[in-house]
């Protein structure tokens, strides 16, 4: 049994999908910030929309970064220095392009990996026609919406744990490597120092004519 949808309804669907697609915006990215570098991201936000920014430093140096958010009128909404992680939410007062900048300019040689999650706008409905609901949701439907929201929270906390675990794991791997290098280095230094000690002592006694009891 095939269901044919009249052309008009198709256009309505088209219109809704177009509109809905342009409303989706939750971007999470992990990028590398070189030393003495600044990286900015821009997002167009409408007035009255709530947006939130979460960021965390995953690798590098003292695990800190400078972050700032500037609104279209060049007003600084948020500015923090050397933070390891933070959360900021705000309701946009102006329509326009908001700028989020991460800066590693205070660091001279450590490059950092930064994760950030910029969420703007409400999550759109699952299929566009849901926007046009006239009746209230049934209990089944409202329970499933609730489950959906809870699962989203679980997913977000999984991301949070994954990031924290990544920080520790990468640091452990660095220690693993460094232990090897330092041990080899120390052994070499040990040999060099002991041999040169003996050589130097010998040289003291061979240069001067042997005077018994004099040794330094």
């Amino acid at each position, binding site marked *: 049994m095939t269901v044919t949808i009249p052309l008009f309804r198709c256009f309505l669907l088209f219109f809704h*999908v177009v509109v809905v697609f342009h409303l989706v915006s939750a971007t999470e990215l992990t990028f590398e910030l070189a030393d003495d570098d600044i990286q900015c991201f821009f997002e167009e936000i409408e007035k009255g929309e709530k947006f939130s920014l979460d960021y965390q430093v995953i690798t590098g140096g003292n695990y800190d970064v400078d972050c700032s958010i500037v609104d279209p009128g060049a007003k600084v909404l948020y500015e923090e220095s050397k933070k390891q992680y933070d959360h900021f939410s705000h309701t946009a007062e102006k329509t326009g392009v908001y700028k989020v900048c991460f800066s590693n300019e205070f660091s001279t040689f450590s490059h950092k990996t930064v994760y950030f999650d910029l969420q703007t706008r409400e999550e759109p409905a699952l299929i566009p026609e849901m926007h046009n609901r006239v009746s209230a949701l049934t209990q089944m439907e409202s329970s499933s919406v609730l489950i959906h929201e809870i699962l989203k929270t679980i997913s977000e906390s999984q991301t949070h744990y994954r990031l924290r675990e990544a920080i520790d794991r990468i640091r452990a791997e660095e220690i693993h490597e460094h232990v090897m290098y330092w041990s080899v280095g120390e052994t070499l230094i040990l040999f060099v120092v002991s041999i040169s000690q003996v050589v130097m002592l010998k040289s003291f006694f061979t240069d001067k004519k042997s005077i018994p009891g004099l040794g330094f």
Partner: protein
Amino acid sequence: MSPFSQIVFIALLSSLSLTRALYFHIGETEKKCFIEEIPDETMVIGKYRTQLWDKQTAAFLPSTPGLGMHVEVKDPDTKVVLSRQYGAEGRFTFTSHTPGEHQICLHSNSSKMALFTGGKLRVHLDIQVGEHTNNYPEIAAKDKLTELQLRVRQLLDQVEQIQKEQNYQRYREERFRMTSESTNQRVLWWSITQTVILLITGIWQMRHLKSFFEAKKLV
């Protein structure tokens, strides 16, 4: 309109260009990389749109023919999974087969343009991972699902992704534990080795110097 053409319609719409997404600026020859840490068998869809800076109008051109981006994706073992050239606007997709950190790198192919404009590019980017890659209107149309059925399908996808992430977590924890135990072993063996070398060197030094002083008749 037949269901098939409906699906085609919706599929076409799903690959619509981005007009409102996060964007950033890169230099013409600059390479920008993003890291995605994902469990295995996870699909990642990336959509981007590039605009070139025009010095004359001091604005970003809406479209530039000939402008292209090279997309390279590397898996956790630094093996190249995807390496393709796309136009100014593109959509790339890959599925991870090993869990871990995948690196998505983008750079412009306009080596000739760099001489003339020496300018910057604006890249609009949107990367979706896991269950966010599913196109629910398309699935609803294809399988003819009601809203509730579609919602349940979405919940199933979400739960599946959560499960994959948990398996990945277990795998990571195992690796972490192995690294820590290996570090422990290394520290132990190197400490013993260095102490032994220290003792041997000390003894050698004393014996050598003793025989040297005896030869010099100082002792």
